[in-house]
C-alpha cells in the first residue's frame, strides 16, 4: 500500500512506486536486488519482502537475465529489472540496445516490451576506473529506448510508474548519491509524463540545463550566482528520450545563454542538448554554449583526482560567469 503525499527519500520513493504498481497489477514483476543501494537507504528494500517470489534475485549473468526480463515482458508481464551498478549492464549491452530497443518497432508494433531497466550511474566516490561510468548518453544514442533520469524523489516515483506502464523498453538511471535525498512525494499511482522538462528555478540571465545529480549542483550554483545578482534558470529535461526540445528552447529564448551540466563524458547528453540548441535555438543565443561535464579520460581512484573529474556547483557557476562575460 502506498502512503498519501509524504516526505521520503529517493530510495523510498522508488520502492513506493514499485509497491503501488505491484498492488495494482499482478503482472508487475521485479528482477534484481539492492534496488535501494548499499548505503543507509538500503533498508527501503524491506518493503518488497512481502511480495515474495514476485521479486527474483538472479545469478550474476547480466546478459541472459536482461533477456529473461525482455522475454517475460513480451509474454505479458510488466518487468522492473535492476542491474545494480550500471557498469554491470555493460555486460548486457547488446541485449538492451539491440534486442530490447528494437523489439517493439521490429515487430511492426505487434509485440509489446514493457520492461524497465534500472541501474546506478556515475561518479560515486571511490568507484575507480571500472565502477564510475555514465551510461545515459550511451543508451540515449541507441534508438528505440526511452531513457529517464530522475533528479528528485517525486520524479523518481513518477518516472518508475510511467516506465512500468510504457509498452516500449525504458532505461532508468539513478545516481547513488541521490538515494538519501528527502522531499515530498505524492501518494498513489503518481505518473510523470515523458518528454516534459521541469523548471526547478526560474531565471532570466542564463539557462542551466542539468541532469540527474547535476540538478542539485545547478541549484547550488544558482544560489551562488544570485549572490552576484545573476539570475539563473535551472531546467531538468528529466527524460533524455524523448527529449523536451521545446521546453529547453523556451528557456533559452528567454535567457539567450546556456550552460549544460552533466556528469557524462563527451559524445553524450550534454553534446546532444548543446547541438539541439545550436541548431534550433541559434537565433536566441547571445554567447557560446558551455558544457560542464567530465574530462575525457578514465576515472582515477585517487580522491582528489576523482573530485577534479566531477562536475559541481562551483564549476557550473564558473561556466555561467564565462558565458555572461562572453
Amino acid at each position, binding site marked *: 500500500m502506498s502512503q498519501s503525499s509524504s516526505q521520503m527519500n529517493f530510495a523510498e520513493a522508488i520502492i513506493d512506486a514499485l509497491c503501488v504498481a505491484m498492488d495494482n497489477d499482478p*503482472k508487475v*514483476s521485479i528482477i534484481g536486488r539492492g534496488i535501494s543501494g548499499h548505503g543507509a537507504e538500503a533498508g527501503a528494500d524491506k518493503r518488497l519482502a512481502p511480495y515474495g517470489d*514476485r521479486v*527474483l534475485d*538472479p*545469478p550474476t*549473468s547480466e*546478459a*541472459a*537475465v536482461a*533477456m*529473461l*526480463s*525482455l*522475454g*517475460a*515482458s*513480451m*509474454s*505479458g*508481464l510488466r518487468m522492473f529489472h535492476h542491474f545494480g551498478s550500471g557498469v554491470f549492464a555493460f555486460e548486457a549491452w*547488446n*541485449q538492451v540496445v*539491440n*534486442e530490447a530497443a528494437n*523489439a*517493439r*518497432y*521490429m*515487430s*511492426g*508494433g*505487434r*509485440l509489446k516490451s514493457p520492461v524497465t531497466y534500472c541501474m546506478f550511474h556515475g561518479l560515486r566516490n571511490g568507484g575507480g576506473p571500472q565502477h564510475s561510468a555514465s551510461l545515459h548518453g550511451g543508451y540515449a544514442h541507441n534508438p*528505440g529506448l526511452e531513457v529517464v533520469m530522475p533528479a528528485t524523489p517525486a520524479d523518481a516515483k513518477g518516472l518508475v510508474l510511467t516506465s512500468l506502464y510504457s*509498452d*516500449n523498453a525504458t532505461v532508468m538511471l539513478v545516481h547513488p548519491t541521490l538515494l538519501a535525498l528527502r522531499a515530498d512525494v505524492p501518494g498513489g499511482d503518481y505518473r510523470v509524463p515523458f518528454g516534459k522538462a521541469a523548471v526547478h528555478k526560474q531565471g532570466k540571465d542564463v539557462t542551466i540545463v542539468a541532469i540527474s545529480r547535476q540538478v542539485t549542483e545547478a541549484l547550488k550554483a544558482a544560489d551562488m550566482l544570485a549572490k552576484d545578482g545573476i539570475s539563473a534558470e535551472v531546467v531538468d529535461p528529466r527524460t533524455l528520450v524523448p527529449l523536451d526540445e521545446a521546453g529547453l528552447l523556451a528557456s533559452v529564448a528567454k535567457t539567450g545563454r546556456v550552460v549544460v551540466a552533466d556528469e557524462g563524458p563527451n559524445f553524450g547528453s550534454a553534446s546532444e542538448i548543446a547541438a539541439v540548441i545550436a541548431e534550433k535555438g541559434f537565433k536566441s543565443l547571445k554567447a557560446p554554449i558551455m558544457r560542464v561535464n567530465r574530462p575525457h579520460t578514465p576515472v582515477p581512484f585517487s580522491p582528489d583526482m576523482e573530485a577534479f573529474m566531477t562536475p559541481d556547483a562551483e564549476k557550473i557557476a564558473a561556466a555561467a560567469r564565462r558565458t555572461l562575460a562572453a
Partner: protein
Amino acid sequence: MNKQERLALFECMLRIRRFEEDVIRLAMAHEYVGRQHLYIGAEGAGAGACLALNKDDIAHTTHRNHGYLVARGSDRMAMFAEVLGREGGTNKGRGGPWHICDPDVGFHSTSAMVGGSIALAVGTAYGLMKQGSKAISVAHFGDGTLDEGIGYEALNLASLFKLPVLFMCENNAKPGQRPSSMLAAKHLSHVPAALDIPTAAVDGRDVEAVHEAAKAAVAHVRAGKGPFFLQADLERWPGSHQVHAAFPTGVTDISMAWEPGKIEGKHADWIKTYDPILLQAKTLLGDKTATQDELLAIDKRVTEDTARAREAAEKSPFPKAEDAAKQFA
C-alpha cells in the same frame, strides 16, 4: 504414428521447402536486399518439433526462422511480403526476413543475434510460469548458440528456476568445413548436462524420429519437470549461407524418391543422403502408407498455394518511407 500424422509431417516439410524455393525466386526476380538464411534441408527437425507443440506454446527463433513459422501455419502471403519489406508483411516490412514475428501462431521476437532466441525463450518461460499458463516456451537455435556465453547463462537460468522451456538445438557443426560452432565439448549435450538439464539427441533427417523425440520432450516440460534439451543432428544444406540467390541442389522433385536416377549434379550425394523430404517419401512408399500419386497430389497443392501467396505478396504495396521515423506508441 498413424497415416494422417505421418502425411501431415510430409506435407509440413514440403510447405517449408516450397516456401524457401519461392524465397529464392523472389531474390532472383527482385533486387533483393539482405542475405538469405534458408531452412532447406532442416525441414525434418523443424516440422518434427513444431507439430509436437500446442497452438498457444510460444517459440523464439533465430534468423533462420522461415521453416518454423510455415510449420505452425503463419500466413505465407504475409511472410513473403515481409521478406520483400512490404506493408502487408508480418512485421509491416520493418523487420525483414530475419525477424519474422507472428504472435498469432506463437512466435514472439526472432533475434538475428546468435544466442538471442535461447535467452528470450527462457524469459518467455518465466513469464508463462508467473502467469500460471499451461503453455510452454520453445527455443529453436543452432549449435552456434553454445559458443555464446549467453547460451550457457540461459541454460543455467532455466535449470535453476525449473522453467518450462524446450531447448530445440539443430546441430549442423561439422569438422572440416568451418563449423557454425567451435566447442571443446566432446558432445554438445555435455553443456546442458553439466547444468543438470536432461538431454536427448536424434537424427534430424528422420522427421518421424524427431517428432517422437519432440513429443516426449514436450511432455516432460509441460509436466512441470523443468527444461529439456533436444538435439537434432543435421547435415548443412549446401546453400544454407548463400549470398546470391541460387538453387545449388535444384528445385526439389519428389519423384526422385522413387526415380533416384534423376538425382545428379555436384550435390547429388547431399540430395540422396540428407534430403529429409525424399527420405520420408521413401519410407511412406516403402511401408505402403502412401502411393506416389498421393504424394504428388500433396506436392501439387502445396506448390500452388505457395505460388499464389508469393504472387500476392509481390503485388502488395511498400510502406510509406517517412513512416520509418514513427515509433509504435
